[in-house]
């Protein structure tokens, strides 16, 4: 009895079905999955337990009406190491991986490494992480997030180990076109850096996130607005005020930490103000927040 397995694994939530109906629906679901993926051999009990485990806060009715049950079927089969399922997953889904990670690092070696890591993580386990796919969206979208995140982590990791090797040598990314600036660079670099880092940390989370998304990752204001359900102009205001706040906090920090007279401070601030426009992105990227 499929319904017995299903019910045993998802508690009391199934009262809206009669036993006979549930049995019929579950049988259909399984048949639907096997029809879409004919080569895959999956134990019915496994699939039922898997389905029940993916309920989350959804009702069984919601889950059973999900349009991504065939994806769920495939994911379940992959989690149970079905050879045909794994092959399908590799051929159909992982084929797009190089294109997905091209933005992070275009080299084939990097794509290979990401692929290896993703496959290890999703298909080997224990337990295979592909089992965490709940069928709320398309499997390919889910996989894309896994891939991107893995890729960014890997590249971060690689960058960090490279940096650790050759000490910290990078210059403060302020251009030095005149003597005044170059003096400021050499004299106050570390102070400005740490003031910037602290100022960043003191920003509200949303301001910090939006500034980075915009200046470091180059996401445009429209897209940020869409995510937050607001107009582009609202985002633009957020960005402007976050920038002002950042600069203000930074000045306060410097005023406290630098032991210089008011005139000197003013000139530093003036410079900072003009330079910040240009180098905010670079600064945010290089200075840990």
């Amino acid at each position: 009895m499929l319904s017995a397995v299903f019910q045993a694994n998802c508690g009391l939530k199934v009262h809206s079905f009669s036993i006979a109906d549930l049995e019929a629906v579950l049988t259909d679901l399984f048949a639907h999955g096997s029809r879409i993926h004919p080569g895959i051999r999956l134990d019915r009990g496994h699939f039922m337990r898997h389905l029940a485990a993916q309920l989350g806060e959804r009702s069984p009715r919601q889950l059973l009406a999900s349009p991504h049950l065939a994806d769920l079927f495939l994911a379940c089969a992959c989690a149970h190491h079905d050879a045909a399922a794994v092959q399908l997953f590799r051929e159909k889904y992982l084929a797009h991986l190089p294109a997905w990670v091209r933005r992070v690092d275009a080299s084939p070696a990097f794509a290979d490494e990401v692929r290896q890591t993703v496959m290890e993580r999703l298909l080997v386990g224990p337990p295979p992480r592909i089992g965490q796919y709940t069928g709320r969206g398309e499997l390919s979208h889910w996989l894309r997030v896994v891939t991107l995140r893995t890729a960014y982590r890997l590249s971060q990791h690689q960058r960090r180990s490279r940096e650790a090797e050759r000490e910290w040598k990078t210059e403060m990314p302020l251009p030095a076109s005149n003597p005044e600036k170059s003096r400021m660079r050499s004299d106050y670099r570390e102070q400005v850096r740490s003031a910037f880092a602290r100022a960043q940390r003191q920003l509200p989370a949303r301001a910090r996130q939006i500034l980075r998304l915009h200046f470091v990752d180059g996401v445009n204001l429209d897209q940020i607005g869409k995510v937050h359900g607001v107009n582009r102009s609202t985002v633009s205001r957020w960005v402007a005020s976050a920038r002002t706040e950042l600069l203000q906090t930074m000045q306060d920090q410097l005023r406290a930490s630098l032991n210089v007279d008011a005139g000197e401070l003013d000139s530093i601030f003036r410079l900072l103000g003009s330079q910040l426009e240009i180098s905010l992105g670079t600064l945010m990227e290089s200075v840990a927040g």
Partner: protein
Amino acid sequence: MTDRDDSVAPRDSVAPHDSVAAGCPSEELLLSYVRGALCLQERERVVVHTSGCEACRRTVAGLLHSSSRSSSTGEKRRPPMRRPSVRTLEAGERIADRYVIVRLIAQGGMGVVYEADDSLLGEPVALKTIANLETIGVRRFKREAQLARQVTHPSVCRVFDVGQHQYPSGDSFYFISMELLSGETLRHWLVQPTRPTESAVIGLALQMAQGLAAAHQAGVVHRDFKCSNVLLDEERAVIADFGLARHHAEPNELTVSGTVLGTPGYLAPEQLAGEAVTAATDVYAFGVVFFRMLTGLFPSEAVGSLLTISDQLAKHSEWTPLLSRCLARAPNDRFKDAGELVKAMQTIAASSGSRRVFPRRQALSRSMRSMPVVLAGAAAVALTLAVWSHRQSLATEITRFTPVVAGTMPVTPLPTLRLLPPMSSVKLPAMVPMVPATMSVAKRWHRRENANAAVAPQPKRPLSLPPSKPTLSRSRHPSDNGTVDPFPPRE
């Protein structure tokens, strides 16, 4: 994660690919965030986390970058949209020495539509300028106008003229003058808070089918029939924007082979495959629109979720065979053109005698008005007897899953799946599911869930009928909408 310590943690102390151990949000949470589909609380959680965790933030950025492109699967990118070659026209501007711009009505991917005064005839018209004529081509634009002019039907937006406006600088642009329509699009009408009654839906659908039939008779295929291309002027449904129309007897020389024109969700399988587009393609798109009007869902949203399909169509079982024929995968299995479709619709409308299926008198098309409806119905019955026998085999298959009320679940999902190709074989641009449309789907879900919960203890009522909605019999009552129905239900 709020501050420094947390934001540093995932970078240094955690294995490079271990997202869960780092307390990072789940993949689904990030996806929903990017789609703007999270509630405030969850969104705050993601924002706070991504303000510190670089990998997650960059993942979000990566998803956002790709959602603004055509494809997230890394297939060929669509060339960037060209900047409109026509600047926006100001109110009061005089175009081609004849039309005076009144206001901008709408701006779309294909062009800009203005309300204008025809100073020659003293009548208001709609002017459509084409934004990126280089990609469409002057020839195609002219042909569009030529073709559309051949179609005169109350349910098809009339095209008057095509013209060219020359600036003193030598720049010029083409425009079409069309019938000016007031009212909202069908798309907006469908998302109104109360669901339209079935009689209203079927009345409008019939008008649209008749409009398409008139176009097909003139040899014009719309190619991009969809809810936002239908305007509701009073109670008249008018098909607008034959923007992608093409004379179907002509060779497909003006569209680059392999390019797909049209709107995802409404595209017939042959359009997706880049094959020949015929009148049957419009029949498919009509099926999608009709399905949406009846159920509020795209067929593609319902496919694979057998509960949804059977739930939704249980209320409209008499239309199920027609819909399944419209949405048949092979063009040959559909109605040949909209003319055939109209006949079939009229037969069904006439046979489901207890329901008022025709629109009000003033909303009837001219051809319908000139003919007694009963006679039309009888003639249609006679005409479609042959069609009927042909469809019998189909109908018997369908009946296996139609009688769905809470308590009886379909034994086999096979017929439902036959409505559409399996999702795995349909390659929609991956951008489509990324758009915030998911939000409205989620809302509908919510509504349907509530409805189901409310109805579940009473097994004989249709699953998806919310308790607050007026039932069909109520809405047919004249006192309900405050007007006396000039066209009482035929019993």
